């Protein structure tokens, strides 16, 4: 990582019209999403802020944090990004939406590690449509003028801006990390899925150990099967063996790619063997 010092911003100014209530205050495991997002972000940036609309500035939940108030009303997320770049123009900004309950440490670390500070921004490529994900992304100081010009031209979609700009697109290790929540049904499903996140021990051997750069690790993952877990780790560590070349072991016994994983399971992906 290099370039301008990184500040962080959680976008909590959304109107959440489909949800009918403030997404920042939705609770997962007893904690409001805004608090979860700030706790996730803060250790990775010099300073972390909450983006709010002018009329929100007095709301209590935001009081615990430094805020940045939108400069232009009704611009949506782009208004928050604009205000942050204007408030601290020498800094780069890690922008996070407040409706990403599955976002975890590993995804943020991956983004920061792959930051391309010579480009205008660094964003994940969406697993569903291949387009940039603008609301879990790093915006460099140089993006400010381009975004101002975009807004002046009457535009307000940050994804459309990214598609037309010189940004770095990177792979998303955990396919569900950026699933967002817009409706009560999605909230209910996400709460249930988050309760199902489990801690898994992963051990690496031979070529995979070298590619992963470690013998073992503990991961917290929503992966339900070894197949989903490998997909996640493969992107995260740049593992170069395709699953069809591997076998899987769960708790020291050969397993199946589609068997359900449980909390505390130890998973090993076995490269082609060569004893004797």
């Amino acid at each position, binding site marked *: 990582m290099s370039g301008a010092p990184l500040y962080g911003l959680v976008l909590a100014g959304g109107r959440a019209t489909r949800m009918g209530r403030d997404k920042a205050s939705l609770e997962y495991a007893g904690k409001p999403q805004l608090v979860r997002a700030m706790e996730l972000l803060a250790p990775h940036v010099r300073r972390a802020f909450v983006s709010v609309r002018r009329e929100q500035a007095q709301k209590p939940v935001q009081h615990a944090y430094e805020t940045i108030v939108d400069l232009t009303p009704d611009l949506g997320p782009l208004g928050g990004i604009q205000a942050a770049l204007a408030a601290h123009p020498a800094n780069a900004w890690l922008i996070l939406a407040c409706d990403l309950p599955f976002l975890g440490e590993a995804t943020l670390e991956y983004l920061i590690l792959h930051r391309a500070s010579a480009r205008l921004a660094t964003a994940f490529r969406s697993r569903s449509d291949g387009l940039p994900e603008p609301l879990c992304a790093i915006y460099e100081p140089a993006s400010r003028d381009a975004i101002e010009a975009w807004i002046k031209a009457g535009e307000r979609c940050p994804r459309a801006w990214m598609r037309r700009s010189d940004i770095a697109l990177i792979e998303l290790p955990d396919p569900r990390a950026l699933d967002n929540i817009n409706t009560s049904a999605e909230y209910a499903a996400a709460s249930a899925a988050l309760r199902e996140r489990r801690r898994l021990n992963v051990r690496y051997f*031979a070529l995979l150990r070298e590619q992963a750069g470690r013998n073992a690790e503990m991961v917290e993952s929503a992966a339900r099967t070894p197949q989903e877990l490998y997909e996640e780790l493969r992107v995260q560590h740049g593992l170069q063996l395709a699953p069809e*070349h591997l076998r899987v*072991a769960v708790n020291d016994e050969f397993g199946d790619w589609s068997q359900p994983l449980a909390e505390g399971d130890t998973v090993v992906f076995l490269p082609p*063997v*060569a004893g004797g």
Partner: protein
Amino acid sequence: MNSFTLHETRLDPQRLREALAHPGCGGYVTFEGAVRDHNEGRTVRRLEYEAFAPLALREGARILSEARARFGLERACCAHRVGELQIGELAVWVGVSAAHRGEAFDACRYIIDQVKHRVPIWKKEYYAEGDSGWVNCERCAAAPSPAGVPAHEHA
């Protein structure tokens, strides 16, 4: 006692053979696999073996009991090295004893073939040119096989 064992130090065939002795056996066959100085046209300087021990011991034991049942053996043992090995060193030892030689030859062959294919042990070759590679892995990493074709069982 598990008769499939992993060893970090030199294998001693004389001692390993003692475990095969049985008064009802007339046929004793052993196989010794040693580190060779070349592989697939390249000069090999040394080897490194790495094992996923808990599963290697289990799978190795399963192979030996399969062989005992299938060939009617009295004893079947296999010892495999892990760690760094020099040219000429013994990497694997298989020994069986049976009433007659036929079953003993067949069983010994069966065991070493199965061990190579099934036991989670990996071999890294260090070449004369200074580079190195994991046997059976590097080609998979370079050129993935068509989806759905199990490429694991080739050794």
